């Protein structure tokens, strides 16, 4: 493998791995804050137990999200130095803002939350988890705005071979960033809701901590359903934005080879081996036209026509992304998210008005599947949006091949790729082990202590 492919694999592995933990962190931060607020308002013990139990799971997950985030921030310089030089004037700003506004807030107030149970007033302690959760939202916004610049560069001017910033507000608030935020954050709530519901459902089936699990199951399922509606709406918006800004990506997502009006939404398309035309295609008439232009008669540009256009505009070269990857990852993203929502609706129906979940083996499997579906869906979402932008790293401005660090040897890059991957693998095993252990242990009953031998509420 050449250094370019190694750097790309490293970026892909780190990003997809990092983003298993990030959506859970964002979503469950708010859900835990909600549970604690419920306890604060009602003084019901079940909400305190739920807060501590899901808080523990949140923290196990948070640790890996944080540490892989450091790699994310540093690998631009390490593996993509030419990219960093080219866009640094623009791209560095949201990253630095993310650190100053979001990371400090998250980490400091989470530390206060974990260790502050007996040091802060109840109200102040509740405020810390809300502030930490707010930090995760800010972080999401800045990094998505940075990514939006790669999808659709705005507010810049190329001077002496470097993209320079002309207007920070254009960069931060372009519709690509805003639509991505309203797509990604609800998706995070969806996966956290599914995780909470899956765990609570499992506890109910096993008859453990049922008084805690029952309300959490409802909260989780309702979160999934509401979040899905938002994800679908903003997804529709994102698709329109994308069709306008990156038509090749939409064409690849649909494996639409030739420009078509009344374009169908493909249910199954099989391409020829050289990737230039479809061999077999089955679809819903006009749906794609509607999705991407808002009009059933709208014309959607096809891959072959775009290729010709781009050759004229950017010079000879291959401007097609990996079409089967784009096509399938786009479908898996939508399909897995929708499946999680369908499961949740079915479960809400089954548990309506205090009905019990059936205690069957199948039900247990559903509870295992529920959290996995949206997380895999999200991973495919990122794989889609990043891989179908190729060959560009910054659309229309810089090709991925030109962004890699020229001085990093293939051997060094390979060494770090293998090391990080092995390390991520080991950490995943440990993380999942602890996660399942925490779930098996269940919620704790509050212990009473005499005032003078009060132990630390939390110690490492």
């Amino acid at each position, binding site marked *: 493998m050449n250094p370019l492919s190694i750097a790309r694999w490293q970026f892909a592995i780190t990003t997809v791995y990092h983003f298993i933990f990030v959506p859970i962190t964002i979503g469950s931060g708010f859900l835990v804050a909600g549970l604690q607020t419920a306890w604060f308002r009602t003084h019901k013990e079940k909400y305190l137990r739920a807060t501590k139990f899901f808080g523990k799971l949140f923290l196990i997950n948070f640790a890996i999200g944080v540490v892989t985030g450091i790699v994310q921030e540093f690998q631009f310089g*390490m593996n993509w*130095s030419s990219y960093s030089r080219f866009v640094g*004037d623009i791209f*560095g700003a949201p*990253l630095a803002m993310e650190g100053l506004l979001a990371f400090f807030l998250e980490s400091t107030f989470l530390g206060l939350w974990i*260790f502050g149970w007996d040091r802060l007033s109840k109200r102040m302690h509740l405020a810390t988890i809300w502030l930490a959760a707010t930090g995760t939202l800010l972080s999401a916004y800045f990094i998505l705005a940075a990514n939006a610049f790669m999808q659709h560069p705005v507010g810049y001017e190329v001077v002496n071979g470097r993209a320079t910033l002309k207007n920070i507000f254009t960069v931060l608030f372009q519709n690509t960033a805003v639509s991505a935020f309203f797509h990604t954050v609800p998706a995070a709530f969806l996966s956290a809701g599914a995780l909470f519901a899956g765990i609570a459902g499992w506890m109910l089936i096993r008859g453990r901590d049922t008084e805690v699990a029952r309300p959490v199951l409802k909260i989780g399922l309702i979160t999934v359903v509401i979040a899905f509606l938002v994800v679908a709406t903003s997804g529709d918006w994102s698709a329109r934005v994308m069709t306008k800004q990156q038509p090749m990506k939409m064409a690849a997502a649909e494996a639409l080879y030739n420009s078509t009006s009344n374009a169908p939404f493909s249910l199954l398309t099989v391409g020829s081996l050289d990737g230039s035309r479809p061999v077999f295609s089955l679809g819903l008439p006009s749906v794609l036209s509607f999705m991407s232009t808002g009009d059933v008669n709208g014309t959607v540009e096809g891959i072959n026509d775009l290729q010709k256009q781009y050759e004229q505009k950017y010079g000879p070269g291959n401007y097609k992304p990996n079409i089967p990857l784009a096509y399938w990852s786009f479908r898996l993203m939508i399909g897995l998210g929708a499946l999680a929502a369908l499961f949740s609706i079915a479960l809400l129906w089954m548990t309506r008005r205090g009905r019990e979940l059936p205690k069957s083996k199948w039900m247990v499997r559903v509870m295992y599947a529920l959290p996995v579906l949206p997380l895999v869906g999200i991973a495919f979402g990122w794989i889609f949006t990043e891989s179908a932008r190729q060959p560009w790293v910054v659309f229309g401005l810089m090709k991925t091949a030109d962004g890699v660090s020229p001085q*990093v040897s293939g051997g060094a890059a390979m060494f770090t790729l293998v090391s990080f991957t092995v390390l991520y693998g080991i950490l995943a095993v440990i993380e999942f082990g602890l996660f399942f252990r*925490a779930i098996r242990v269940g919620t704790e009953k509050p212990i009473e202590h005499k005032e003078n031998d009060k132990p630390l509420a939390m110690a490492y």
Partner: protein
Amino acid sequence: MSLNSFWFIIIAVLWIGYFILEGFDFGVGILLKVVAKNQPERRAILTTLGPIWDGNEVWVIVAGGATFAAFPEWYATLFSGFYLPLFLILVSLIVRGVAFEYRSKYGSMDWRNRWDNAIVVVSFIPALLWGVAFANIVRGVPLANIGTPAHIEYTGGFFNLLNPYALLGGLTTLFLFVTHGAFFLALKTEGVIRDRSNALAKKTGLVTAVLAVAFLSWTMISLTHKTLVVVGSAIVVIAWLAALGANMKAREGWAFFFSAVTTAFVVITLFSGLYPNVMPNIDAGGVGLNIFNASSTPYTLKVMTVVALVMTPLVLIYQGWTYWVFRKRINPNQIYKPEVGVLDSINL
């Protein structure tokens, strides 16, 4: 003052914050098995870091991000050039974060010992390597033009970074952080840990003094025309003597304060030596990066200046408040059921 100089100072401030804060984190991590003789003591030690280590670590992320925003050429050349040392630092930071959070999750002694060993190793590596990295930056590294005149790359490889001056710099930060960590533990604990930390700081403090004097003298000799380096070095020495003096008199707060001042002035001295360069060439006639040819445009610097001026004081206030909330000393006797992990349960 130009915005370029201002951002040079901001970057220095971020590194000062990082080395003062995570400096003692590293020191505490390295001393984990030296100062503590049993599990409750180790847990007490780590609990002193519990609420704060993550916030401390953010300083390096922000230093990296701010360098990217303000001096993209520096960020790109440094991070791709110092590839393997940074990789080792990253791996260390990954394992450290996870080790802190996971070690107490259950009670098996093997499990805890393994994480404790990991904490010692991954605290040691960055404490040493940050010194090596900064000493190399100050000393100058092999740089060359690639393609256009604006494009400067590091051309030295890995072993070039392991020169005697840089290794001395690494040992200096290592011992400085160990002692700084011992001062922190003495300030934050009660009983045996406090006594042992105070005693240990006396020894490592002397080693630090010798290393720092050697390292700073070498720095002064190689950067002859820099008055600020001389002044900075003098302050380092005075502050360190004050820290050691306070330690002798068992004034733990002052000892920690002065070791923080020392750490700050080590960074200030190195940055003064560097200014206005950010990555000079080892070959005096060769191309190098400075605050002008490595920087972002004035507009980006202006945007970032507004953000930094608004946010940095706010961050300092709430981080400071965290230290205030957790100001109480920790006693190993307070560790509840030391043999039980957070995830241990009788009904398992």
